[in-house]
């Protein structure tokens, strides 16, 4: 670099800068106005339609959480766009009177900007961490699997236990409070706390009831418990969200949240209809070892206790009492 070129620029820079409008304040003003308008608009107009909806308490909570995240993200997005847009408009090369780019110390660092950036992002990240943690705890696990001994249990005195059994490549459902009947379709009652007990007969699957905002891994010989409380009737899509083999993509089915009376009618009818089948099923247990039926494919140990202890649901102090959907 020739000093002939850099010296005049260095000398002219302060003068040129003094002639410039206060760009930073302009950008902040534009950003503030846009964010103040768009953020509430987004929250009140788009927010109610953000997935996963409001079918359960988890779904409502998660929708709220997503909205909070998006309300925080929208101003950041606007800041980036405003800054870029402002730069493109104000310092485009075809615009007359634009000073040459300034090098030197000012281009290398700006202490206030750096501190401001670090402090702002730190506050945002730590704030979101605290927010997420609190929401996870107060939301009874927020619809996620909590393992066999849940830390966060619902406050409801009664729950409807539903066992979800993953198998390559379909989910089936057992209802221990209805004689242990097993069905191919998930039906649950409205305005009821549900305890999903998720397990697998082979590889790892993941039970994802999208509209219920429930997602829990299905591990063989593990009872993974997830809670939710239904708030609305409607259709539910259940998908496996863990790559589990060639037909993983086909491992989905549909369920319903129905009124309590409809659920009671359906459950009793199905219990009677499947009685012959239920009688032949293994006794209800929280987990199953396929070797019990010699259907092990040669990969399970022989001569083991085939089933976990069939805990009487609700017998454990502090755990909710099961109900038949009422």
């Amino acid at each position, binding site marked *: 670099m020739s000093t002939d070129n850099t010296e005049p620029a260095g000398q002219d820079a302060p003068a040129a800068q003094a002639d410039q409008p206060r760009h930073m304040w302009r950008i902040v003003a534009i950003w503030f106005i846009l964010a103040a308008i768009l953020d509430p608009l987004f929250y009140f107009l788009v927010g109610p339609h953000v997935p996963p909806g409001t079918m359960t308490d988890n779904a409502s909570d998660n929708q709220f959480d997503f909205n909070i995240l998006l309300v925080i993200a929208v101003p950041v997005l606007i800041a980036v766009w405003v800054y870029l847009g402002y730069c493109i408009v104000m310092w485009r090369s075809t615009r007359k009177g634009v000073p040459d780019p300034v090098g030197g110390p000012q281009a290398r660092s700006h202490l206030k900007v750096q501190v401001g950036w670090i402090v702002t992002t730190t506050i945002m990240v730590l704030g979101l961490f605290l927010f997420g943690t609190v929401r996870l705890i107060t939301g009874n696990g927020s619809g996620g699997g909590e393992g066999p001994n849940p830390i966060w249990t619902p406050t409801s005195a009664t729950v409807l236990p539903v066992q979800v059994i993953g198998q390559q490549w379909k989910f089936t459902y057992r209802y221990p409070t209805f004689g242990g009947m097993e069905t191919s379709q998930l039906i649950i009652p409205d305005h009821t706390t549900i305890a999903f007990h998720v397990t697998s007969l082979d590889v790892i699957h993941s039970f994802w009831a999208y509209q219920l905002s429930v997602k829990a891994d299905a591990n063989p010989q593990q009872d993974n418990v997830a809670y939710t409380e239904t708030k609305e009737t409607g259709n539910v899509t259940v998908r496996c969200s863990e790559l589990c083999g060639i037909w993983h993509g086909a491992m989905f089915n549909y369920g319903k949240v129905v009124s309590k009376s409809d659920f009671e009618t359906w459950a009793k009818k199905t219990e009677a209809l499947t009685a012959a089948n239920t009688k032949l099923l293994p006794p209800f247990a929280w987990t199953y070892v396929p070797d019990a039926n010699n259907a092990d494919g040669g*990969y399970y140990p022989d001569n083991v206790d085939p089933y976990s202890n069939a805990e009487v649901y609700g017998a454990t102090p502090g755990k909710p009492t099961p109900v038949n959907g009422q």
Partner: protein
Amino acid sequence: MSFGGRVSVVLGLLVVVIGFAVWGVVGFLLPQPPTVDFTSAQTPTGAIDMTVQTVPAIGFGYQPVWVSYLVKNPQGQWIHSTVWKLPAHTRINVTIDQYDSGSPLRNQQWWRVQGTLGGQATYNGKPLSVYDSNTGNNGIGHTFTVPALNLSVPLVGVDGNATNTCGSAPCTTNFDHNTMKFSFMTPGAGTYSWQCFVPCGGGYLFGNGGPMTTLGYMGGFLDVVA
């Protein structure tokens, strides 16, 4: 490492990458099971009659010992395919000749007949709604299950003490077998996967590899068209 050594490593890795690429492309281009078209095979009543068989060993191809389904096309030929084209909203009358032996089920839910017309099937001419595979010598050989339709029929296995068993496909009814018959209605147009729910891929992880994960053997698609 010397320059020559480094060049050798790079070339070696290049060969591996090219090898994987060629393997992937060739695998993609390999022929898939043919689609057997039943859309013009409707009987005067509007229904479609299908005849299917399950065999303990296909007897040919690159995996001759794998269990498999076969289907008889409208021209009466046995086709080794599990991709079947069917018209929408049509009654399908299915006859499955099951030549394989059976075993207990991993999930006994699959010994219940589900989703068929009337909620039943027939097993060698007798009505069947639930088959207890833990009793007798038969067990369940396979199932014909379309998860999206909640349709499932257990295929009762051939007696484990049978001596006149079929060794390779296509099997004739002279061999020991069980015949399952049932009917179902096709839904609207779409592609519906179906599979066997007995982990019959012996020698593979959880019994669900090999023929259970290869199109054309123990799973396929109902290609339902409007």
